[in-house]
């Protein structure tokens, strides 16, 4: 047991239970904090925040629409920065974080280039075409970099493309099919990351994609429960949501149990189930006053079941619960 990594929370519990005295715990805590990789932490923080600020500055610079600057100068500057990012990424190598961030920066600069190009030549095309072109052009870098943050950025870009398409063109998408398409896109990305893309298996990526998939599928499914047919919702909408819940259960409770993912699942399932029960209870002709009390008790019961299941899973995984 003593060969396991020491944790501050455990150290504090040891002190609270009298296994260590106050001064021993304080001394061990200070030694533990000092042994943490603070340099690596500062390195990552400066790299990420610095890159974000620099890229934001570049975006704002071109958004200013400099009249004194010629079109070739503007496009040349962006292309130069883009080429520099790719050159240094190649020099550094894509297996290092710096290389991955350089490719991500290049991917952002493609969007800046397309926006400035549209601004200069006033092509008259809808905004969705710019996002679509941006999404397509960066595909090779997304594939090559193997960087979860870039993939998430790319998926977000696909969302923006579809949403701007629906708002500017619409046909053949309505509210229901837009939500279903986005939900399935997120679910497919999650399924791929869990099966064939091991470098995508990070908890934060899993959390974002699972949340996005369930929210996109749950919104129309909830409308269907409350008012079938609203905004084009059908039984298929509800079935798609239930299939996503079943898939997530199989993946994160049976195949590879994961507590944060199961927590997201539980919250979504509780809301879905309570919407269905609430619809049944409040649209009936029962005693309305008692219905409020009964529904309150059902809410407590449903969430208790979810928390009990999560605690059992936590014990199974040996995580704190």
């Amino acid at each position, binding site marked *: 047991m003593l060969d396991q990594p020491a944790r501050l929370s455990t150290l*504090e519990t040891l002190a609270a239970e009298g296994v260590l005295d106050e001064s021993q715990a304080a001394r061990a805590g200070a030694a533990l904090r*000092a042994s943490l990789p603070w340099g690596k932490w500062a390195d990552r923080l400066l790299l990420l925040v610095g890159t974000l600020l620099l890229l934001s*500055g570049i975006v704002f610079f071109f958004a200013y629409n400099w009249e004194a600057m010629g079109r070739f100068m503007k496009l040349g500057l962006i292309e130069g920065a883009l080429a520099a990012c790719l050159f240094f990424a190649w020099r550094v190598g894509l297996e290092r974080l710096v290389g991955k961030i350089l490719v991500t920066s290049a991917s952002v600069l493609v969007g800046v280039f397309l926006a400035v190009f549209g601004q200069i030549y006033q092509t008259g095309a809808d905004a969705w075409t710019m996002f679509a072109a941006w999404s397509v052009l960066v595909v090779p870098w997304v594939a090559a970099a193997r960087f979860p943050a870039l993939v998430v950025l790319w998926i977000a870009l696909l969302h923006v493309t579809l949403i701007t398409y629906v708002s500017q063109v619409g046909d053949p998408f309505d509210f229901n099919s837009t939500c279903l398409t986005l939900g399935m896109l997120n679910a497919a990305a999650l399924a791929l990351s869990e099966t064939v893309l091991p470098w995508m298996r990070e908890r934060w990526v899993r959390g974002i994609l699972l949340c996005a998939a369930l929210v996109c599928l749950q919104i129309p499914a909830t409308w269907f429960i409350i008012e079938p047919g609203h905004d084009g919702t059908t039984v298929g909408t509800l079935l798609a949501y239930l299939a996503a819940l079943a898939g997530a259960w199989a993946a994160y409770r049976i195949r590879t149990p994961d*507590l944060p993912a199961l*927590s997201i699942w539980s919250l979504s399932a509780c809301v879905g189930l309570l919407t269905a029960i609430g619809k049944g209870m409040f649209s009936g002709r029962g005693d309305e006053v008692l219905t409020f009390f009964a529904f309150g008790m059902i809410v407590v019961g449903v969430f208790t079941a979810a*928390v009990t299941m999560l605690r059992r899973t936590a014990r199974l995984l040996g995580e704190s619960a």
Partner: protein
Amino acid sequence: MTTWTTLLEQVPGVDTSRVEAWLSTPREHAHAPWYLQAITAVGAWIAAAFFMSFLFRLELIDWNSSASFFVWGVILTGAAIGVARRSGSVFLGQLALTASGVGQTLLLVGVGKVADNWGAVALTEVGLAAALYFAYPDALHRFLTCGVAWGLVVGWFVEQKHGEWLSVLVGVQAVTLAGLTARSLRPALLPLVYAFAAALPATVLVMQLWPEGSLWPPQAILGGWLLWLCRWAGAGGERRDWQALAYGAVVALAVFSTPGILTAVGLLILGFGRQDAFLTTLAVAFLAVFIVLFYYHMEVDLATKSWILMASGILMLGARAMLPRWSVS
């Protein structure tokens, strides 16, 4: 990663066999992960809304009678304490949390109706939070009541347009956080640390969005807190050059940034130093918010702003390039 063996070797007089025996015994941890606690809280809040509707629809509470608010508030809060202290069941625990939420809300509305004063409501909740911290031994309940008490106090100060009182609140929060985390933290006090850690950036956010007072007092207080955190982080180490670098960076941040950025960086240090996912998540979220606010509120045109942003980015990347190699490896 430092193992227990390596760590305990640095502390004289430790009975390692006792520590090993303790670590080998399987036991329930004192606190569930924060996301599990969040689900419990969501359930309790939804249920509380329906129970409250039930009480009003049954006309057990008369809107015109503050006494009925007090009576039901005391009954429900008392019942919640009794159930929470005696029962180990998840269902009853969830029910108690809900009852306590309803009871406290009724009590506060009752106080508000009698006193017609936000300050009285806020101070009542501060008193309730302090009393319930001992009476209701549940981590989530402690976090939520402290958080609600903070929210009401801030609301009171904003309503009174007392910006300087908000600065005092920031000072109290920073000093309390430092005091609580300076030595070995008792697990029972962890919810208080979380509540203060969430309240501190939220208070600063309120100050930056509705500036009723000068921002230099919180800037100075938080600069001092950040310096203390640097010392706290490296207290057990031997690299004095690393600490000097950190102090320099803090002074530069305190001079050129905002209280919000200082708070978020402080929470990042606290989160990493305590290896705490909740604090780190909180810090990252608030850092993003405060960086956006910092540049958004600059009273310069877009072109100048873009230059400042690019210069800030280059400065950070330059600072990274100058980090001593030993510190990164």
